């Protein structure tokens, strides 16, 4: 893995922030709710260390995630992950529903997929635009299960891959729902990503 300096991390944070800001605007317009999305931290860890990274959100037994494969100069999986209860609560807030014990049924999964689709598209669009890279995307999908199995759905050698982890706070109607945006990059893709960023920075 190459050394990633602080300026590169800052650049990544800015790019993600642009996308997230755009996504927040879209969600706010779409739902009519006052939504703010914040990116408080950017972390890059090997995938096999992700559960021991101290990230309690990710290290939970089960996650609800919206996934998007991408291929290009750098390839991988981008994902928005939530604890299932937070995911259900987020959808309930966005749809204005009230239920005593909300659960992620098929309709709410579709809604969550749209929310995830907006966020991921915005982030990936921001990355692609800023870095002037052309990426090929799969159709977004929904995943529910432990983080370890998330990437394995797509590829086998995920343990050697790197994860760009952006902690996201969804602030909706005074409720703070935490989620993570993950960029699970294939071997070498992180280097390619960093190289592209450095080119832009240069």
């Amino acid at each position, binding site marked *: 893995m190459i050394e990633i300096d602080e300026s590169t991390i800052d650049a990544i944070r800015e790019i993600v922030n642009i996308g997230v800001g755009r996504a927040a605007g879209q969600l706010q317009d779409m739902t009519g709710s006052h939504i703010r999305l914040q990116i408080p931290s950017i972390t890059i860890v090997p995938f096999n260390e992700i559960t021991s990274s101290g990230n309690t959100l990710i290290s939970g037994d089960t996650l609800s995630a919206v996934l998007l494969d991408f291929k290009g100069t750098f390839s991988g999986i981008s994902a928005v992950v939530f604890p299932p209860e937070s995911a259900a609560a987020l959808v309930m807030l966005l749809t204005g529903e009230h*239920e005593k014990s909300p659960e992620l049924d098929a309709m709410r999964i579709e809604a969550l997929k749209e929310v995830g689709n907006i966020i991921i598209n915005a982030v990936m669009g921001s990355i692609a635009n800023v870095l002037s890279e052309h990426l090929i*995307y799969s*159709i977004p999908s929904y995943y529910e299960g432990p983080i370890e199995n998330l990437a394995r759905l797509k590829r086998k050698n995920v343990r050697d891959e790197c994860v760009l982890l952006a902690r996201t706070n969804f602030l909706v109607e005074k409720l703070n729902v935490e989620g993570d945006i993950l960029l699970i990059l294939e071997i070498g893709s992180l280097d390619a990503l960093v190289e592209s960023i450095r080119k832009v920075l240069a």
Partner: protein
Amino acid sequence: MEEITDENPIFRLLDLIPNGIIVIRSDYSICFWNACMVEWTDIPADEAKGTNLIERYPALKNPIIYSRISQIFEGGPAVLFSSTFHPHLIPCEFPNGGLRVEKISCIPFYQSTGKYALVLIEDMSDLTNQIKAYRTMKAVAEDQRDDLQKAQDAIYLANKALRETTEYLNNLFDYANAPIITWDSGFHITRFNHAFEHLTGRNQEEMLGKTLDLLFPDETRNASMRLIRKAIEGERWEVVEIPILVKNGSVRTVLWNSANILDPEGRILSTIAQGVDITDRKYAEQELKESEERFRISIEKAPEAILLFDINQNRYIEANSRAEQIFGCSRQQLLDSGPQQFYKPDQPDERSITETVNEHRLRVQAGETVVFERNICNNRGEDLVMEVRLVQLQSADRRLIRSSFIDITERKLLEQEMVYHEQELRQFSAALETSNKKLTLLSGITRHDINNQLTVLMGFLEILEMMQPDTSFRDYFNKITNAAERIQAMIQFTKTYEGIGVNAPVWQNTRTLVDSAAKDVAMGDIRLVNDMPGDFTIFADQLIVKVFFNLMDNAVRYGGNITTIRFSVEKPDGDCFIVCSDDGAGVSISEKEKIFERGFGKNTGLGLFLSREILAITGITIKETGEPGKGARFEMTVPKGMHR
């Protein structure tokens, strides 16, 4: 790939898919409209193709929607529009009306001819309806669950409260001070408390399940059961008195009240009765009644006149018959005006009546018994002297003064007479004393003179006896001498006898008397045993020491082979015996009484006669009770009150 056309075999396959599929170019013009869309929209493919999707479906013009779709053509990923947020983005009606609920995915793909987007429209209506139905059902179930939980919580709380209430009521029932019992419609005892056990002296085994009649004494059983049947029939006892038979056979009087316990249909399940044991109260009331009756009788039958004054009411409330007799007026007159109306102005204490009445009342209220005399003139005009005694009678709720009037008119007259006679007696006593003194003096002088003359006589007789050698006269000389000596003894006796009763009797310690008397007796080898208690005294003439001396002297002189003289005291009830006994020859049966006669004896013959006389001054008697040959025994019986 070539330009998208219906003729392209790949897209022909899309006609087979049961979802709506539209393919648009980057200018949003429709280049493919599958069979499903034709069916859902009734728009033939030829009509749709070439038209602008955005223009056809204005909802897509919404900037939020439009900007997202446009991303596709800028190299962005697929865009999803969920049925939740966009249920009718491309409205498709059901044949029978109503819009399909749709999920739309816009998927970019690239051809050499340009950028395209495949718009996949999935009919989510059934799923949405199912999910909504499920949600509704779930919400109902959750509401029901919550209601159930609330009901369970309420039941739990109600049960808890019921348990607590039951426990409280059980404790209240079991440990109530009042006896409580329940019975069923068949009069079987179903429950009772500790107080009831205590009342009847019977335990659970003896009463539970048994019929009530075991609780009643024979004589009231039928009446009690009649009352209980009435209670079962719906009559509620406010207070009814039913005697209860205690296990030990005694009967307690109990006041009961009852209530029937009904089931929801109003049928009597059981009857509960609570009692108050009034036996002691009834006894107390009876006792009080009897006490009041005794008090009334004691007042009514009292020999003195009695009036009761109620301090609180400040009036007389009772007067007995004797009061009517003494004051010579009716009871009502006495109660109205009191006894003061009969008081004469001159009273023994020479004080004003008003002043003394108030003073006496205060002293009585202070707890003092006040006794005084009153001169009265009754209604018959009789002048009487009364001894009045005032006593306070205090009870919890009343303060009474009992005034008793004893007619002491006669006593006062007797007292006056006694004073007169006492004066007379004193005068007689003084005269008698003077006479006695003169007589004593006279007899003393006479005795002295006679003794002198006897001494002369006996001296000359002795000279004559010495001068007369003729022995034939000796016998006469002896007789003359004996006669003279007897005269001398008689003179001595008169002196002694004269002293008896001259001085008043006094209390004397018997042990000291024995010791004093023994000093004048020549006891020789004879042992004196003085067993008289050191604190035993008798009331006797002051010459009694001579009695003790005489008894010891007689024993020494006439007891024969005597070794011991013993004085002791025996105390049967009332009288007591002072015993003087010895182990000498004793007194023969024929002489047991003669020895107390004057003139009997080997010496002067005056000892025991005088002893009996001296003892008789204070009622003490003496007799000889010994067994002849085994010693003499003199018993002196001292009457009750003369010894201590």
